[in-house]
């Protein structure tokens, strides 16, 4: 092979004509193209808000009506499943004759107190890890251990230690929320840009100044972001505490009704509990967005 041949070969390869036999040049032709699929861009049309809400209400009405009819006609066992009309009757007696508000207030209080203690103590604990890497390293396995522990399994112990009253429910709600806040606040601490810290130190800042003017404001959005999760966890903790041993509360009401086969009352208590949960969730979401605006990040 001469040098010229080598050069020609290189040129041919470089011009991208592959598989061409000597002499005959393969022209790229249109016939070699596979048939192209051409479609319209799929577009989803949004319904107006009223239509969405109407559909939602409609589905709810159908479920309730089916339930009622099924129980009346004997398709399902009305004793185990109860039925909407009976639940409605029980709901009215629950609020007129029973001590509904004592129970609601009890559950509400233990949830809120547990939520506040767990969130604030947990956040402070998480932030405190900034102060010393050694302290954080030592504490880390304990925190992770406490996180992976099924805390509800400790509930019977908590009841024995704190008694049947409000304190034990608060303790369980606190235990559930505390770790979440600790870990989130600590994640915030770890996300602080080291250059940002260097800037503060170059300005001659003390450790306390860095903590107050950088670490805390930086971590606030992280701390705020768990409020909604925590209110749900706190409610779960309070209800479980009431399940195990209590004299008041919606959790106790559910357990009691179940044990006495008063299924309608179970449904009523669950309904009231869900309403309470939704109200607290919405309130906390509102507080969260208000705080977020205040923090501006």
């Amino acid at each position, binding site marked *: 092979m001469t040098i010229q041949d080598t050069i020609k070969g290189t040129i041919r390869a470089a011009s991208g004509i592959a598989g061409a036999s000597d002499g005959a040049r393969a022209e790229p032709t249109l016939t070699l193209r596979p048939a192209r699929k051409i479609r319209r861009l799929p577009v989803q049309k949004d319904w107006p808000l009223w239509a969405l809400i109407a559909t939602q209400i409609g589905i709810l009405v159908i479920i309730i009506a089916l339930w009622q009819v099924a129980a009346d006609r004997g398709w399902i066992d009305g004793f185990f499943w109860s039925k909407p009309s009976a639940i409605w009757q029980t709901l009215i007696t629950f609020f007129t004759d029973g001590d509904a508000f004592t129970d609601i207030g009890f559950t509400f209080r233990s949830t809120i107190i547990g939520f506040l203690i767990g969130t604030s103590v947990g956040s402070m604990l998480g932030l405190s890890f900034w102060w010393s890497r050694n302290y954080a390293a030592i504490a880390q396995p304990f925190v992770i251990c406490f996180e992976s522990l099924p805390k509800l399994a400790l509930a019977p112990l908590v009841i024995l230690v704190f008694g049947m009253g409000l304190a034990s429910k608060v303790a369980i709600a606190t235990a559930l929320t505390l770790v979440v806040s600790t870990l989130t606040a600590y994640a915030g601490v770890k996300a602080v*840009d080291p*250059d*940002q810290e*260097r800037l503060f130190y*170059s*300005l*001659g*800042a003390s450790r306390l100044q860095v903590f107050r003017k950088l670490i805390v404001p930086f971590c606030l959005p992280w701390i705020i972001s768990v409020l909604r999760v925590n209110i749900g966890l706190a409610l779960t903790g309070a209800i479980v505490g009431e399940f195990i041993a209590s004299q008041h509360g919606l959790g106790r009401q559910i357990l009691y009704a179940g044990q006495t086969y008063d299924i309608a009352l179970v449904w009523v208590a669950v309904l009231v509990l869900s309403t309470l949960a939704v109200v607290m969730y919405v309130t906390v979401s509102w507080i969260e967005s208000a705080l977020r605006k205040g923090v501006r*990040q």
Partner: protein
Amino acid sequence: MLQPVKLRLEDVSMTFKTPRGVFEALAPVTLAIRQGRFVSLIGPSGCGKSTLFNVIAGLLEPSGGRVVIDSVDATGTIGRVGYMLQKDLLLPWRTVLDNVILGMEIQGVPLQAARDRALPLLRRYGLAGFEHLYPSALSGGMRQRAALLRTLMFDTDVILLDEPFGALDAQTKLQMQEWLLQLWSDFGKTVVFVTHDVEEAIYLSDEVNVMATRPGRIVESIPVPIARPRPRSVTLTPEFIAIKERCLQLLTAAHDSHVDEAA
């Protein structure tokens, strides 16, 4: 008339212990900078520019040598020099005004007094109308201005600028250079400036120090005896081009020796 020496580095060196032995980040560096001068450091990445800055700012204890500011040993003490990093590091939860007064606030100046002092400067130096906005509403150039004013308002005689315009587009960069020179002549600070951009270094400085890697060191100090104020066209004069060629020659030499070593 020669000004007194403001900042002096005496055999400042930095070594790190690694599993594979001792790594010499900075060979003993000696440098004297007179008051009110604008001095640049240029060099390839890894030549220890940032290490040197951290040592001057007191954020890093050198392995050997001393940092002397105003004839006082300042090694390992913070809060003596203004230090601006490449990132603007503005706090997103503070307004531009409150970001700019951060240094004074940390030094214990009452908030209101600090704001009163900063406000006219913000207005004079191109941030009028932005004082009460949050940094997220500002362009890159504006953020960099705010960061530089924060460094200035800290009110130290020496300020260290670590590639302050590195992330800006060419157009904004030119504007910012003029703006920086304006500030420098108004405030009479002693400036140490790190950049990758040879032309920027020469255009701004009284003296350009070329650095090399392995170990990080200053290979040559090149004075820039071009009269100020310098028009933009100065970059086309033979004098300027000669200095630029010398710098590039040193940088390439440093780079080549580096390659030889690797080969």
